[in-house]
């Protein structure tokens, strides 16, 4: 049996949001923190080389923000598709 239209739509919207979040997750850690760390280190913010800052500080802050962004967006999707609890 195929899921009802709205459940399938809800899942698609969720996957879209997930993809965006995981791209950001990848870019700040693997991208800025590892692969591009050397060119970014040429830029200084305060006493931090930028690549080093992403690897030891910035990526962690981004992860936190990313989860709360996902929570907020999913809360909206849950209500929009009428699949929220109680």
């Amino acid at each position, binding site marked *: 049996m195929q899921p009802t239209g709205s459940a399938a739509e*809800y899942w698609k919207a969720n996957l879209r949001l997930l993809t965006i979040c*995981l791209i950001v*997750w990848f870019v700040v850690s693997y991208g800025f923190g590892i692969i591009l760390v050397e060119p970014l280190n040429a830029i200084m913010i305060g006493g931090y*080389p930028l690549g080093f800052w992403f690897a*030891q500080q910035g*990526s962690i802050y981004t*992860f*936190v923000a990313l989860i709360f962004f996902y929570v907020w967006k999913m809360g909206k999707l*849950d209500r929009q598709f009428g*699949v929220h609890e109680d």
Partner: protein
Amino acid sequence: MELSTLTYMVVGATFALYIGIAIWARAGTTGEFYVAGKGVHPVANGMATAADWMSAASFISMAGLIAFKGYDASVYLMGWTGGYVLLAMLLAPYLRKFGKFTVPEFIGDRYYSQAARIVAVICLIVASITYVIGQMKGIGVAFSRFLETSYEVGLYSGMGIVFIYAVLGGMKGITYTQIAQYVVLIFAYTVPAIFISLQITGNPLPQFGLGGSVEGGTHLLATLDKVLVDLGFAEYTAMKGTSLNMALLTLSLMIGTAGLPHVIVRFFTVPKVADARKSAGWALVFIAILYTTAPAVGAMSFFNLINTVQPDMQNRAETSLQYEDRPEWFSNWEKTGLLTHDDKNGDGRIQYRASKEENELTVDRDIMVMANPEIASLPNWVVALVVAGGLAAALSTAAGLLMAISSAVSHDLVKGVFNPGISEKGELLTARVAMAGAIAVAGWFGLHPPGFAAQVVALAFGLAASSIFPALMMGIFYKRMNNAGAIAGMLTGLSATLIYIFWFKGWFFIPGTEMAANNASNWFMGIQPESFGAIGALINFAVAFAVSKVTAPPPEHIQHLVEDIRVPKGAGAATGH
């Protein structure tokens, strides 16, 4: 006041608090015992998860690792936090919706297979036991060094405390104790960090202090880079390994984190699906407080160390510290053998250098956090607090792991496989006996630590990454995944990872049984064994996908189950069926 008296008082007070909470939060039902009755507020659960997650390794070892490895240690910072993004988005809400008690239970139901459930139980027990040994050792060491008891007495005291609150309260007791333990450990970690950041950079926030300037106006990181190069080391902020290994290790740690059962099961304790998402966010907030402080603690304690033995920060043998003038903390740690001075050139001074021939100072990196307050000459109560914090970190993680082990035994093996008709009361009793048994086994390993205790962390993460995480993720995101695919994937992912680790580190870590020397020229594509969990996970995904394509699709009710866990609506209280 004498340091040991003060430490006794602080540690005693925290222990009394944990026991008080245990008596208050007794568990009366299996629901309370396994998942704290599913009534834990998401913020409270986030705090408990943070304490559960941050072990003796995070508290005691991580900053020291960062100090001596500099930039390269970023893999631990990113790996052990980025996993929560995966948890929040790929696993936690769906597993909460599924609404059962344990991780193997989900795998068994989703793949309609007792065999899959048993494979998951084995992975869970091996990963958790290897992890808990390290905690037990940490407890024994902290006691013996600071409370001047023997290692055994320390270990028995730790076991006794965990026994009281875990056997009595189950997940409910553990959750509320972990909240208290989080408060103790984060206070103990940040207070010395703030003092030291103020001393070195004048900025009270360590996160800013690390980017701040030291006396004389140069930046702290630039100063470290310069002095390390002068002494013959690589720059602090430069990459020493390869990008490929760093990325793979980070990925292994991230998916390992998301696949560790004692962390996942914490998200079963909140009332709603939305709370599971929120709770993962809060957990990461509480973890990030320590994880963004740790790089500052690492760099600053390292700066202090170099500044002590080489006050002019130059590569000049004649200006390094006279051995006779060494500070008190130096001689205190010398007694433990974790800090040693070998006057190779016989000049009565301490030279810290990169070259083996010239270097006279050996520092065990695990002492950096513990010695930090003394190096910065902070008052004794701060040192006592750090000891209590380290114990809180070790106890909270040990309790979470023991909980995962005992519920796998009582719920998945006894109730799920051997005696499905067991009564609620009987199961609760079994769970308590299993918990007591798990504590005894962990204690035995603590008393007879296998020589490979440090290496097995890679094993625990490798197992979780290569077996549990892919099975859970495909169970949710790929409706067509069937029992044959999942089991084949778990077994191949697992064995590939195990063989790769054992190949270079010896079969079952027995020295001398390595098949090849553990160095870059022998590694497959230059991948170090610690980073292989990510490859194991890829193999798991690929094999599972291929096998499921050529075998029968899962029955219709399983496909309905997957559709059902994808929407939050209708998540009731958890049932253990």
